[in-house]
């Protein structure tokens, strides 16, 4: 298994805009305070505070139904919270347009069956005023980035599960996001393909410097990927613990004793 993270230079560098914003410096890539959400009588999220540094990889874990997807929906701008603020790159959000550089990879790949792989990826740019030529170039770049340039004209139903995941990832990356949100992104893949996808995500993150926030039930995934693991508890959904993982050296191979020990510790806690 190849878990080495390569730091090759890339023409594709979504991170720079956030870091380069004048007067912001190291403002959190994403910050929320006092986020609450109710569905009917039920309080699903009761006051979430969270700051994520630029380039940080954060895992959200917690039992089923504790509101992880709901929190991610709110972070994506798709679901308005009942209370609280959201800041992106240090600026308080006022409208959905402020979310242009936040990409959301849903739990299902949601590839449109009537579009080829290439057109599914370029779909990510069709909501923005990107000129056709640039759209084509960025689509090709994103496909190459995830290793799908060979199947650009295939239909989604012709792809394997891993390839479908890659296509969905490419569609999120084509917008050159400063923040990438992922909801149990690789949970449906077999272990080997999943760990390949982990390598891909780490490589792309290292090249681009983007911030990644993802939900997972897989403790191995959390330990292998995350700089910080945030544990939520239900009724109401709240953060109960934040585990710093930055002291754990990379690449992290699950079979190595130090990594295995972290995974074991995490399983014991939950």
């Amino acid at each position, binding site marked *: 298994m190849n878990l080495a993270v390569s730091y090759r230079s890339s023409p594709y560098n979504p991170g720079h805009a956030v870091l380069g914003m004048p007067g912001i410096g190291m403002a959190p890539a994403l910050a929320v305070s006092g986020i609450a959400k109710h569905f009917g009588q039920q309080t699903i999220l009761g006051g979430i505070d969270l700051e994520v540094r630029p380039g940080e990889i954060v895992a959200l874990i917690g039992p089923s139904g504790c509101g992880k997807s709901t929190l991610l929906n709110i972070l*994506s701008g*798709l679901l308005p919270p009942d209370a609280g603020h959201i800041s992106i790159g240090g600026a308080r959000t006022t409208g*959905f*347009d402020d*979310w*242009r550089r936040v*990409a*959301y990879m*849903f739990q*299902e790949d*949601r590839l*449109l*069956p*009537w*579009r*080829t792989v290439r057109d599914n990826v370029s*779909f*990510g*740019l*069709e*909501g*923005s005023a990107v000129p056709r030529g640039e759209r084509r170039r960025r689509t090709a770049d994103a496909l190459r980035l995830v290793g799908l340039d060979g199947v650009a004209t295939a*239909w989604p*139903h012709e792809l394997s599960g891993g390839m479908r995941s890659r296509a969905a990832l490419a569609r999120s990356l084509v*917008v050159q996001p400063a923040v990438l949100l992922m909801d149990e992104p690789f949970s449906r893949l077999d272990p080997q393909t999943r760990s390949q996808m982990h390598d891909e995500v780490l490589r792309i993150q290292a090249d681009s410097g983007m911030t990644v926030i993802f939900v997972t039930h897989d403790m191995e995934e959390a330990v292998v990927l995350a700089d910080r693991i945030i544990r939520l508890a239900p009724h109401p959904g709240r953060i109960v613990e934040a585990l710093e993982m930055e002291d754990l050296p990379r690449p992290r191979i699950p079979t190595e004793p130090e990594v295995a020990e972290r995974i074991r510790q995490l399983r014991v806690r939950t």
Partner: protein
Amino acid sequence: MPKHLVTLVAQRALLAGVILLLWWIGASRLPSFVLPGPQKVAQALVSLWDSETFALDILTTCRRVLLGFGIATVVGTVLGLALGASRLLARFFEPMLALFNTVSSAIWAIFAIIWFGISDTTTVFVVFMTAMPLILTNVWQGAQTVEAQYVDLARSFHMSPPQILLKIYGPTILPYFFSGARLAFGFGWRVSLVAETIGASNGIGYRLRQAADLVQTDQVFAWTVLLVGLMLVLEGGVLKPLERRLFRWKAFSLSSRPASLQTN
């Protein structure tokens, strides 16, 4: 040529041969005003081709059908989308649809005569009333199958409502629309002839009625052969290839097109 194709062509040729033979035997025993023979019908076809009004009749009927079908497409699509978008509207208008689907085209033709007399409008109206509910039903059905997940996906990429309509609703509904439109065109075309026999003074339907009144059975046969040929060309030369091209992505599921309602 692949083997199964050769077999198919042979089978079709055999079938055509058998029909021609039966026709020929039957015609030789019956008076020609009951069943004219193949040669006589061929002659009628040639004389039809040479007649002054031939092209005009065909164009007139086509114009009426296309007009009725075109209006039905626009109205049916818009109404289908509206019903698909609003549950309230859908519940309210559902009985109307059942009504439209049960009233026979012949009844619409009779109403059309009363309201519009002998005119283009009569045929256009009957085609419209036959085609519109079919298209509406199918578009509505298609709109109900639009995946909320895809709509959220489009929203997450900051697409506007018109873009979502075009990029998510459009492709989802298209197969439904297509099978509805195809059915509607077929029915519309057939009922246009019925409407023309009673409510027009030119067009294919009118000529058919004229030939029947004058007991020119060979002419009736000639028109029939012509119409069958026209529909086969349209089906195999336009609709089938178009469908194959539009729904390439389906590959396996072409046979699971939505079942459409019967009319007439």
